[in-house]
């Protein structure tokens, strides 16, 4: 009774053989054997149910042939007693069967639960590059198909396989004992059956693979053409689409028919080979009992087993297939779990601080919402706090304590450190026992940064950007120029190959990743929302935010008015990634989400691209309020969005080709000027 929960559809793990069988099995068993005793009970019950099964058949035979035919019973009471004993044997079997499968259900479900959780938890730690390399569908199928196959195998197939093997061995042994001569016939039929399983199983596997490939093509075509149906109709391409589909569909039909035939024909063929064996045994046994005096009891008992022995063989062949595909699935899951997590050697942490009467910073109490933060830098020698003065070229040089005009700086002493040298600290600095508290100000610097997603294609060349606290820095340039990439490097979604990025003078690699990201608010290019209320989605920015905070943030983002017009206002459920909202409304929610997080540095990546310019103008005030006092990185196609920035970086082919504020750049009459006037002069 195979129950399939039918999660997802399409390819089930397939028949790919696992690569390292032994290791995968051992590791998977670890999920079943957290406690030893339930497994021992399962084994005991398993043995019990197999033994009672074999014993039951023998006992019936004993009762019929020896006792009834042999005239052992003087009265029906004797027969009744024996039938009672038979029922007792059976009852043990029932209990054992239920206990064994019940315990397995619990073990397997708990095991898969843990497997899924560990997989998900690990996935959360993987770097973004991993998610770039794998499609969502692929990662989803780790949780659906693969985990399901594992669960089904653990819950049923493993025990079933064991029990079938025991059953088969037991039956064969009994048959051998009962009549070695008759077994000669059975050996022949068993061999033939085995051959059928091997040949048909192999064929069925081969066609199944072809079928899966064809199915993939058919489903891919369906998905693509139905989603693109409007384009097909616009180009009156219906005929061609139908023809292509007919071809793919026919090829799938052919391979599916073959695969289906080989897998369904196994049963009748194997069972009928057993039937042939049965016929031969009946004839041969009949002859034997006449010629050589084979006892009638042994003959009939043997015949019974002869019919039974096919069942476990068939089971074994079926379960092996399930188990192999489960192991292949488990292997893929483990592969994902073995992927390296994001590197984080950060030791600098972010702490919320409050000021005392003298203006000294002190860690804020747990859970309080403060607007001031400080980096807590432990003294560990990677870089040290020092004093420095600016020389005539604006470069920093170290100076003794008490020098006129001295400022705080971090000194990176190591030559091979890309950050080697002095880095200015702009906020307050406070020495404590064993660590330094440095006020978080939002000074971000990229110095000579090179970056590539894949080794052979460099995306950013020698990018240097200085953002002082409270400044608005904009990136403009054509698609693919590397604007988004730069912001992805600041929050360390990706690791730079060369150069250094500092935040308040601290190399971002030295900052604990979570704390770094917590200090950066982001409104990303595509706004993704989560299932939950509108309020929940805004609160995603800061989980402790009160309802009032969220409403306030929505007002800043200019989202309040449309939210109030939704059927349930802030309690309206957002479903399917916000399918019930327009792209512009989703962006407004994204902005509100960042606003509620209240971070010192904000990244706005095309944050208003889907909001029409009139609405954008209406929310401009809120946006200005949001950016007030924060360091902001803005990326926008629309130049009207970026023109009031402190500095605008014009990117092309991964290089900054122009920089300056709006007026400078217009005066330069360079690329920015051309973009801004948007004229045909560019030709």
């Amino acid at each position, binding site marked *: 009774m195979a129950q399939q929960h039918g999660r997802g559809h399409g390819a089930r793990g397939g028949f790919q053989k696992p690569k390292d069988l032994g290791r995968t099995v051992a590791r998977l068993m670890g999920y079943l054997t957290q406690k030893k005793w339930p497994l021992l009970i399962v084994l005991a019950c398993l043995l019990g149910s197999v033994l009672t099964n074999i014993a039951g058949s023998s006992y019936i035979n004993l009762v019929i042939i020896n006792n009834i035919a042999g005239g052992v019973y003087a009265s029906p009471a004797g027969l009744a007693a024996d039938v009672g004993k038979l029922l007792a044997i059976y009852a043990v079997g029932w209990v054992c069967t239920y206990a064994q499968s019940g315990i397995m259900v619990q073990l397997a479900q708990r095991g898969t639960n843990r497997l899924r959780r560990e997989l998900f938890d690990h996935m959360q730690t993987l770097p973004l590059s991993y998610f770039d390399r794998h499609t969502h569908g692929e990662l989803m199928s780790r949780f659906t198909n693969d985990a399901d196959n594992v669960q089904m195998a653990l819950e049923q197939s493993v025990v079933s396989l064991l029990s079938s093997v025991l059953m088969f061995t037991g039956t064969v042994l009994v048959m051998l004992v009962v009549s070695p001569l008759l077994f000669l016939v059975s050996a022949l039929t068993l061999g033939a059956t085995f051959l059928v399983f091997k040949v048909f199983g192999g064929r069925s596997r081969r066609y199944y693979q072809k079928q899966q490939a064809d199915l993939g093509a058919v489903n891919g075509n369906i998905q693509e053409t139905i989603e693109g149906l409007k384009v097909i109709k616009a180009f009156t391409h219906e005929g061609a689409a139908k023809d292509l589909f007919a071809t793919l569909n026919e090829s799938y039909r052919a391979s599916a028919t073959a695969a289906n035939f080989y897998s369904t024909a196994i049963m009748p063929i194997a069972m009928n080979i057993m039937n042939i064996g049965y016929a031969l045994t009946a004839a041969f046994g009949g002859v034997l009992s006449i010629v050589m005096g084979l006892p009638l009891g042994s003959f009939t008992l043997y015949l019974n087993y002869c019919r039974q022995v096919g069942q476990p063989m068939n089971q074994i062949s079926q379960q092996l297939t399930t188990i192999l595909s489960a192991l292949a699935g488990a292997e893929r899951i483990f592969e994902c779990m073995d992927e390296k997590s994001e590197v984080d050697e950060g030791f600098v942490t972010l702490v919320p601080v409050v000021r005392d009467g003298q203006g000294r910073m002190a860690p804020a109490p747990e859970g309080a919402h403060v607007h001031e933060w400080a980096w807590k830098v432990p003294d560990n020698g990677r870089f040290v706090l020092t004093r420095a003065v600016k020389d005539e070229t604006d470069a920093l040089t170290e100076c003794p304590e008490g020098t006129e005009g001295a400022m705080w700086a971090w000194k990176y002493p190591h030559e091979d450190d890309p950050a080697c040298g002095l880095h200015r600290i702009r906020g307050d600095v406070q020495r404590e026992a064993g660590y330094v508290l440095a006020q978080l100000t939002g000074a971000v610097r990229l110095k000579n940064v090179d970056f590539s997603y894949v080794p052979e294609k460099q995306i950013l060349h020698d990018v240097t950007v200085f953002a002082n606290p409270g400044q608005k820095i904009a990136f403009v340039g054509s698609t693919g120029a590397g604007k988004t990439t730069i912001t992805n490097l600041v929050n360390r979604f990706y690791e730079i190959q060369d150069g250094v990025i500092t935040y308040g003078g601290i190399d971002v690699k030295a900052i604990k990743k979570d704390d770094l990201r917590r200090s950066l608010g982001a409104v990303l290019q595509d706004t993704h929302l989560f299932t939950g209320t509108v309020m929940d989605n805004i609160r995603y920015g800061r989980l402790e935010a009160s309802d009032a905070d969220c409403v306030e943030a929505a007002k800043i983002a200019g989202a309040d008015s449309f939210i109030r017009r939704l059927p349930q206002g802030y309690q309206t459920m957002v479903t399917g990634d916000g399918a019930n909202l327009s792209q512009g409304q989703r962006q407004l929610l994204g902005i509100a989400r960042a606003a509620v997080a209240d971070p010192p540095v904000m990244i706005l990546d095309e944050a208003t691209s889907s909001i029409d*310019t009139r609405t954008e103008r209406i929310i401009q005030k809120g946006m200005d309020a949001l950016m007030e006092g924060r360091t902001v990185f803005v990326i926008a196609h629309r130049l009207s969005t970026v023109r009031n920035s402190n500095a605008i970086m014009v990117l092309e082919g991964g290089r900054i080709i122009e920089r300056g504020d709006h007026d400078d750049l217009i005066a330069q009459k360079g690329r920015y000027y051309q973009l801004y006037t948007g004229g045909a002069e560019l030709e």
Partner: protein
Amino acid sequence: MLKKLFPYMGGYKHLALITPLLMILEVACELALPRFMAGIVDVGVAQGDLGYILKMGGVMLALAVCSMLCGMLGAKFAAMVGQGFGANLRRGIYNKIQEFSFADIDRFSSASLITRITNDVNAVQMMVTMALRMLVRAPVMLAAALAVAVSINGELAVVMLVTIPLLVIAIAVLMTMCNRLFQVLQKRIDALNGTIQENLVAIRVVKAFVREGYEKTKFKVSNDALTKAAVNVDMRVIAMVPIMMMAMNGATAAVLYLGGGQVLGGSMLIGDLSSFITYIFQILMSVMVLGMSLLQLSRSIACARRINEVLDTQPSITDGPLSPADLPQARGQVEFKNVDFKYDVGGTGENVLSGIDLTIRPGEFIAVVGGTGTGKSSLVNLIPRFYDVSGGAVLLDGVDVRDYPLEELRGRIGMVLQNNVLFTGTIRENLLWGRPDATEEEMLQAARDAQAYDFVMAFPDGFDTQLTQGGTNVSGGQKQRLCIARAMLRHPAVLILDDSTSAVDTATDARIQASFKRNLAGTTVILIAQRISSVLSADRILVLDDGKIVDVGAHDELLARCGIYQEIYQSQQEGVQE
């Protein structure tokens, strides 16, 4: 419900009739075996008749071989019929969907159409295969085995008449319990998948806001809820096996006791008792299989209903009455005559467009601006008849678009949709969608005109570069340019661009605009745009607000007199004049 799908059996109808017959024959052979075995024991061995034994053995062998052949052929035919039927059905639905109008597609939603043509067809097809094998085999097996049992010993057969209803009731109770729990389980599965899906899609948001811990907790809640529901279901489902064992063993014991008594009393042969016990297994197994099959059948009926919904849909937009010969020369004149439009035809919803009156001259470059949701896309979708007007008429070259054959109408129009799509295949193949018989030079020229040539040539394989499904290996701006090239290659009389340069940067956009001017001299161009810079060079600009035409005119005129246009302009031009 299923009857309507019967025509999709197509050429497999005969095989579909033969398959059950083979199945019956197989069952008959199989059932006869124990009967002959009993003969060997009761007659052959008992009387020491070697000849009889060999004769009966030979008969049994023949039966087994016959049964095997029937089984094999049955499997073969069932596979052919099932898969053939599935393929026919899929193709039927697919072809039907190709005829759907935009309104029909919207009504079903693409996702639902995809489910129907994949999952639902699969379920119905599996049901057919199963019905051919199990739904015939099980009842025949049941009836035949019962008949044999009765013929062996009518009194003992009463045991079966008691056991079968008991088993049926037990299974029914268990299944009803499980069914409810299955629904809970399915919901939990959907919830868990939803959580994972959302997390994967929004992984950047998760990481940017450092919400990994929060997501883990969310996952754990869903995951535990799923496990709980699964355990709940499975602990009941596994009871099926012991219940079946109880029925079988109980019946065996009863037969043994009653039959044993009869043998002792001399009214029954020992071989008959033996073979009667063999039939118990077959009878009860058939009952189980029959129960399961009926359950499957009831599930697939829901799928069949959903398939029928698609097949029964009459496409809401079909060819008009005129033949190509009756149609005027394509010039590209578009007229809207007092057009009203709403999406839910006949419904109570508000009009998306109302009272639109407009004539676009051949070769004119007209731009449409207005805020989101003001009806810009709806307006242009009426021209190629993606939707039909609710009132008034749209005329192309002086003929109502509803009178055109669709292919002729859409052949005159090149359209770049807002959510445009490229298809799996090379870039060249995708561009040739515009006009399959275009020459290489024409294709390259279209790519140049759409500012796509340079970036395409920068790919290692140039125009032979394979696009992945959905065109995910090109950027948004590149995709839009390819879509424009595809429409331009069509050399249409009317070219419609629905916000199709939104992802293209301003400079490239400007070059595309310039190329329109230069290359599409005789073509009517209708362009929807957000950026004022894109519409500056239009002959006339149409300002839409709330589904009505607010004003039409050249840029300077509108700037002088149209409030909404001024606002849009100001919002984009701030600072330029400072």
